[in-house]
C-alpha cells in the first residue's frame, strides 16, 4: 500500500521558505524507498525545535518531535534500541550548531548510523531573527542590533575534525542534487552529515548571494581526507568565496550500533542470572 506522505496538518512555513524544498526532497526519497520495496514503517524522523522541525508534523511517517538541539541523542537511543530502523534527523543550525553542538560532535565521533540533515538558514526563524553559529560576522539580528562580534564556524570543517564518515553540502535551490546527497547519506552506513544551505524568506534571504557563488564539486576525491579539509575551507561561511556543493568526504568505518550487539535473552534466563549474582555474593 502506498501511503500519502503529506499529512493533513496545516503548513505554516512562510511563502518561499527553503524548508519546502527539503520537505519535498524527502517526500520523493521516501516514495522512492517504498517503490524499492522498503517499508516506511521502518523509517523514523527525529526533529529538533524551530521552523525546520515542523516537518515532523507535515511528513506522514514515524516521527519524534524532540527538544531544541536534541535530535541526536534521541535518534541514537532509537537506533541502539532497534538497529533495523532507518533514522533521519532534521535539525536547524541553531539546533545542531548551538544548543546541541556537543551531541553533533559525539555522533560524528561515534559514527552512529543515522542521517543528519541540517536546515542551515544561518538565522533563527521561529524566534524571529537572531544570529546563529553560522551567521556571518557583523550579522544584525534582534539580539545583536549593532552586528555580531563573533565569527561563524565552519560546520564541514568541524565534522571532518570530529570523525564524521559522510560529509556533504547541498542547497535548497538545487533539489535534484540535494536529493542525491540525502539518498547517498541514508545509504551510507555510519554518521552521514548534510549541511543544507537554505534561505530564510523572512529574516535572511541569501538567494542572490548563493546563486552567484555555488558550484558543484566535480572530480573531487571523496576518499582523500586532506583534500576534503582543503575544500571545506574554501568558503568559511563568512568571507566571499566560491561555495562548493556535493560530497566532500566519505569513508567506511564500523558503526556505533554495530559495536553494540543486540542481546536477546529470555526473562527466565535473566532471572536465573540475577539469582546467580546473588548466590555469588553469599
Amino acid at each position, binding site marked *: 500500500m502506498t501511503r500519502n506522505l503529506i499529512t493533513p*496538518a496545516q503548513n505554516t512555513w512562510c511563502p518561499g521558505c527553503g524548508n519546502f524544498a527539503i520537505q519535498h526532497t524527502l517526500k520523493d526519497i521516501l516514495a522512492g524507498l517504498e517503490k524499492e520495496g522498503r517499508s516506511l514503517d521502518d523509517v523514523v524522523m527525529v526533529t529538533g*525545535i524551530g521552523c525546520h522541525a515542523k516537518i515532523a508534523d507535515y511528513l506522514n511517517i514515524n516521527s519524534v518531535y524532540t527538544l531544541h538541539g536534541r535530535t541526536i541523542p534521541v*535518534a541514537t537511543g532509537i537506533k541502539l534500541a532497534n538497529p533495523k530502523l532507518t533514522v533521519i534527523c532534521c535539525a536547524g543550525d541553531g539546533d545542531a550548531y548551538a544548543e546541541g553542538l556537543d551531541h553533533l560532535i559525539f555522533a560524528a565521533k561515534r559514527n552512529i548510523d543515522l542521517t543528519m540533515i541540517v536546515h542551515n538558514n544561518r538565522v533563527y526563524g521561529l524566534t524571529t531573527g537572531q544570529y546563529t553559529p553560522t551567521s556571518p560576522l557583523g550579522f544584525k539580528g534582534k539580539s545583536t542590533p549593532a552586528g555580531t562580534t563573533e565569527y561563524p564556524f565552519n560546520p564541514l570543517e568541524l565534522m571532518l575534525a570530529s570523525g564524521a564518515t559522510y560529509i556533504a553540502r547541498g542547497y535548497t535551490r538545487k533539489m535534484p542534487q540535494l536529493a542525491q546527497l540525502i539518498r547517498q547519506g541514508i545509504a551510507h552506513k555510519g554518521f552521514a552529515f548534510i549541511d543544507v544551505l537554505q534561505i530564510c524568506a523572512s529574516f535572511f534571504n541569501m538567494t542572490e548571494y548563493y546563486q552567484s557563488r555555488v558550484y558543484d564539486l566535480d572530480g573531487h576525491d571523496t576518499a582523500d581526507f586532506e583534500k576534503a579539509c582543503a575544500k571545506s575551507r574554501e568558503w568559511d561561511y563568512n568571507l566571499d568565496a566560491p561555495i562548493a556543493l556535493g560530497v566532500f568526504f566519505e569513508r567506511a568505518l564500523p558503526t556505533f550500533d554495530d559495536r553494540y550487539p543486540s542481546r536477546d535473552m529470555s526473562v527466565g534466563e535473566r532471572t536465573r542470572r540475577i539469582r546467580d549474582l546473588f548466590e555469588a*555474593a553469599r
Partner: protein
Amino acid sequence: MKEVSVLVGGRAGDGINNAGAMVAQLLNHLGYFVYISIDYPSLIRGGHNFALVRAADKPVGAYNNRIDYLVALNQETLDLHIPHCPDCTVVANADLAKSIPSGQTISINAILKAESAPPITGNSAMIGAFAKVAGIPWEIVLEVFSRHMPKAADENLRVARRAYDECHTTRQVPALSGPPHSLLTGNEVIGCGLVAGGLTHYISYPMTPSSSLLHFLAGNAERLGITVIHPENEIAVILMGLGSAVAGARTAVGTSGGGFCLMTEGLSFAGMAEIPVVIVVSQRTGPSTGLPTYTGQAELQFVLHAGQGEFPRLVLAPADAGEAYRWSAAAMYLAWKYQIPAFVLSDKTLSEGTYSVDYDTLAELPVADPVLWDGQDPYLRYQDTPAGISPLAFPGRKDAIVKVNSYAHDEDGYTTEEAALVTLMTEKRRKKEVKLKEEMDRYPCVSVRGKADASTALLCWGSVRNACDEVATRLGLRVIQPVVLSPFPDQQFSAACQGVQHLIAVEENANGQLAALVHEHGGRVDVTVLKYDGRPFTPDELFLLVQEAIAP
C-alpha cells in the same frame, strides 16, 4: 541485640573497601547480618578511607561510632579513631603504624617477603590477623577466601595464614547459627531490581554516588543481556534514554543531583510526550558540587517538582536492599504501564552501603504489562481512553505511524495550539495520575514499623529509616516511612498515623522536605530532627536527639 563492629582504615588506594568486604564476609559466614558503610574523601590516592562493618543478629542498615575491632593499615587510622573507641581491640600494620597503644601488630612487608607474595596480597595479611584476633575458625577464612577472592586464592591464603598464625585470639566474636546471606550494595541491588523489572538498556554519565550502579551494570552487561551506554553528558543520557524507550526498549538512567539538573528538560519531555523512563537519583550532599562522596536527602522536593509544566510522576524512596530491589523493579513496570517517568530516589548511604539480603525473600509487585496497540484502528499515539493510557506501538511496527511530540499535541501526535485540545490532553495525562494512585493504593506504599500502637512516631524516608528502626526499638516508638512519595499515598499515610499524637520527622536535610510534603497533604509534623553534615545519623546519636525531642 548481639552486635559487633569492625573498622578497617587506611589510605585511599589501599583497597580498604575490599578489605572491609572480606571482613564482612567472615562475619556473614559466622551467622551475622552485616552492613558496611564506606567513608572516603573525593580523591583517588592518599587521604583517609575507612570501611565500617557492623554485624548483628538482626538486619541492620546503620552504624554507630562504637568500634569493637580496629583494623589499622596505617598510623592515621589509629590517630583518628582510637579517641572514639578507646576500648577497641587493635590489629595494626607495624610497617606504617608505629605508635600503638595496645593490641597486636603484624608486619605486612615481612609476611609478604616470607611468602614471596606480591604487594597486592598485603590486605589478606590484615584479614588473616583480624580473623585470628576475633577467634574466627580457619575453615571460615578458607571458605570466604575461596568464594570471594578467587583470583590467586592460594597466594592470598598463604599470606592470610601466616598472619593468622602470628596472632592470638584476644576477643572472641561469638558464632551465631544463621546461614550466610548475599552481601550486596544498594546500587547492585537497584541494578538487579531494574533488570528484574525488564530493563534492557541503562544509560548514565558517571557521578558519585550513582557511578557504582553504572559500573555494576556495565560490568555485567553481557551476563544480564543488557546494553549499557555512557554518553557525553546527562542531557544526552536522558534523551538517549527517551529515544530508546520510544523504540520499545525498557530503559533506565542514573545520576546524582547535579546530573539530574541537566536532565530536567528531558524529564518534562517525557511527561509531555508520555515516554516511560526510570530515573535513579542517588543523592549526595549539596548544593552544587557539595560533598561528592557523602550523603544527604535534599533532593526530595527537587525530584517532586523538577521539569516545567505539570505531569504525573512516580517517586519511590527505598530504605534498604530489599526495598531497593522490589521498588526498582516496580518502577520499571509502572513507568511502562502508565508511560510516565518514575524515580528511584536513593542516597550515598543506600547506594554504596552493603547489606545482607536474600534473593528468595524479594517478592515483586504484581504490576500488569503495558497496553499495546492491537493493530485494528489507525494508530493514535495519544489516543484518549478512560484511564488516559494510550496503547503503545513502536516505530517499525507494521502500519503504525507513531508520532511522538514535545509540543502540545492531538491524539495523532500532531502539534496543536487549540484550547479545547490542550485541555483534553492535559486531562488525559491527569487521568493517568488518578489511575496510578488507585493502583498504588493496593501496594504497601507506607511502611509502619516499631511499636505499631505507640502515640509517638518517627517520620522518615529512605535510608534514614534504618537508624529510626533502632531508636524506635529502644524507645518504644512507631516508625512511619512512606516509600512512595508521588503520587502521595494520602490514605495509607493517614492510616499509618492513626493514634499518633507526636510526630517527629527525621531527615538528612536542613529544611525538613518530607515534613513539608506531609504538611502539603494535611498532615502535621510536631518537630523535626535534621542533620546536614554529609554523614548519616548513627542510631546512638539519633537516640539522644529523639529523646530530647520527646521530653525537651
